[in-house]
């Protein structure tokens, strides 16, 4: 078999983006639930569990994002020209949210406790952030960018009134809340914190339906917006059908209060299938109709050296990530609350 090196590149990047989608969602949703809980409930049942998960990993989460945008410039330098020019405003807004979130998280956790206002800001920014990042996906569908004397220009008005924009916006919010809730149910359960488990399970069930409705509505919107993409998507119907099956699996397990670990794994499978299905059907375009994988790809020498660097890097990364997970995520003592941060 002969796999194009372009495909290898985009697969690596897409995988890291998926990683960011999952752990980023957990992070963003956690911030929101924490804020909501602080405002509505005097017990603050969630704070401890959320703090304990987030503290050692928040910086790692951010690196997944950095990896993606650095990698895409490396593998597909032409994207810098197109996306770099049109994304100035949306990505700057995302950066602003990211900066406020990241720094205030650290200020609060490691520094001095502030007041509720911060938690509120923190929670809200966590919802807006994925929404503002998801604009990139919307734009990639084409129809929002035109060339003016050879320079790409983004049409904000069309973007703003497009139903597709708003479906993706809604999907990003519901997905974040759903993914986060399912994970935290499991995590709280491991910590034997029944109160928090029950609250999170409730949230997970509440957000399950909206998340699947918004996801389906995107497929529907796509039919009108980008017929070519829609047709390719339909060829991959089985991936989406499987994805739906896993969704049902997760919800049933949550409903039956059984095996939250499996529920989370099934959730990953659901999103992986949908995410890769979407990605594959997007092929070969990076930006409809201007940019494909092939005409934006870097030279061969760079591609090979990036892939070698990537493999060597993974050799470092995987054991370290494993260590992190073992010491914190899967360490009974830590999860239950024997923290020793000074």
């Amino acid at each position: 078999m002969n796999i194009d090196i372009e495909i290898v590149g985009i697969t690596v990047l897409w995988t890291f983006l998926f990683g960011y989608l999952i752990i980023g969602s957990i992070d963003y949703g956690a911030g929101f639930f924490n804020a909501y809980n602080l405002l509505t409930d005097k017990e603050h049942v969630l704070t401890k569990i959320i703090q304990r998960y987030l503290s050692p990993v928040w910086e790692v989460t951010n690196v997944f994002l950095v990896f993606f945008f650095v990698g895409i410039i490396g593998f597909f330098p032409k994207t810098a020209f197109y996306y770099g020019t049109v994304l100035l405003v949306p990505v700057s807004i995302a950066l602003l949210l990211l900066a406020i979130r990241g720094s205030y998280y650290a200020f609060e956790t490691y520094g001095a406790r502030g007041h509720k206002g911060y938690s509120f800001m923190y929670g809200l920014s966590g919802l807006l952030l994925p929404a503002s990042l998801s604009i990139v996906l919307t734009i990639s569908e084409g129809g929002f960018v035109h060339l003016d004397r050879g320079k790409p220009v983004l049409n904000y008005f069309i973007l703003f009134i497009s139903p597709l924009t708003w479906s993706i916006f809604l999907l990003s919010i519901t997905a974040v809340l759903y993914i986060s809730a399912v994970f935290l149910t499991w995590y709280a359960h491991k910590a034997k914190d029944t109160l928090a488990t029950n609250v999170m399970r409730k949230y997970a069930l509440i957000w399950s339906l909206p998340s699947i409705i918004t996801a389906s509505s995107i497929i529907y919107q796509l039919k009108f917006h980008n017929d070519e993409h829609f047709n390719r998507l339909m060829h991959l119907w089985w991936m989406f059908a499987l994805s739906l099956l896993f969704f049902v699996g997760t919800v049933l397990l949550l409903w039956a209060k059984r095996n939250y670990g499996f529920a989370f794994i099934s959730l990953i499978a659901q999103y992986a299938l949908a995410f890769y299905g979407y990605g594959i059907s997007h092929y070969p375009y990076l930006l409809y109709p201007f940019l494909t994988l092939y005409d934006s790809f870097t030279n061969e020498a760079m591609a090979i050296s990036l892939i070698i660097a990537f493999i060597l890097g993974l050799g470092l990364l995987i054991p370290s990530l494993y260590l992190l997970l073992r010491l914190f995520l899967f360490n009974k003592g830590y999860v239950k609350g024997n923290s020793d941060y000074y």
Partner: protein
Amino acid sequence: MGNEDALFYSRILTELTLSFHIIYATIGVGVPLMIMIAQWVGIKKKDEHYILLARRWTRGFVITVAVGVVTGTAIGLQLTLLWPNFMELAGNVIALPLFMETFAFFFEAIFLGIYLYTWDRFRNQRKHLLLLVPVALGAAFSAVFITMVNAFMNAPQGFELVNGELVNVNPIVAMFNPAMPTKVAHVVSSAFMTSAFILASIAAFRLLRGSNHLYHKKALYLTMKVGLIFSIATALIGDFSGKYLAEYQPEKLAAAEWHFETTEKAPLILFGVLQEGEPRYGISIPYALSILAYNNPYAEVTGLDQFPEDEIPPLYIHYLFNIMVAIGMWLTILSFIFWLGIKRDWKFVTGSWFKRLIVLGGPLSIIAIETGWWLAEVGRQPWVLRGLMRTAEAATSSDQVDLMLLLFACLYIVLAIGSVVVLRRMFRKNPVEKELSDRNNNKEEERT
């Protein structure tokens, strides 16, 4: 907004973000090493004070890392947003070190997370110290890799341009360009130096404020010693950077030195003003420029007369250069006197006016970092890639850069105030004396 404006605001925004990021990044590179030294000394000497020093530095460090991470993410994306044409070319040739940098970030982030939460998990303190090694390495290598990219902008190589097409790209050759060795070494050693002087200035400040605790005295002596070592290294490597410039970027050196005519036995001019194109009122040190450039008082140094008008960088970089060098010299002398004074029991080095000078050292070294970078970047103008792509050709055509500039300026003000307030509150609420007695009590309890 025309393209001129987009260019202008892109420059300002890049300057702003980088100048802000570099403060936190420098601390991020240097402080892990300092923590490592303190913890190591503490374990070796079985001295609680040094261990506590390491702990307190770590706590402060986490705050600066957070701001370093978010501003770094900002600059990483802004490079693409503001300079799409440059990044397209850079992506083709110099993406390798940028990509490797992300692995350094991963490495640092993962082990920092572990280090922070495992202070008392290991019976053997050395194991805990070992966790810090990847943090320090990761931080230092992020600096190494990103500086390689910057070096490439100054001395691009590793590809050919044939009819506007990139051919024969060799990423390794691009990475190991002539600017790389001095630049990387100077950046890393100046980061160590700066971190040492910042920590020294905190210790000196506490002592000035009336604390007479042994803890602060130990901290001061340790940091000043490390500061001395790295300020000597920084000055030496800086001298090599000058030699690199003479060889590969003579226009930058000539502009920085106000060296207008190509001459032998070139003198070095310190400060002064320009009147009708002539340097006045400066201090002129005979032969010094020839020595800086070639180690030979008689050597010929290329002047600005050899370059077309529109390829000469702005002449104000002369002051930036002077300020950086003056600070470098001054801090070397200051830390040397302090070190000798402690050895020889000179009274004045523990006096209060000397401490005031040490307190100044932290801010001064940050000023040196800033002026150094401005010198390097402004001195490369009008090029973004020297000799190949002008800054004006690299900029975005987007119309909203001015608005974004405003947004980010506000953001950085908030982050700057936030980080200072949080750091102060953190240490004020938990003074050394209290922490030491708390820890002692805990130990007593454990024993009984």
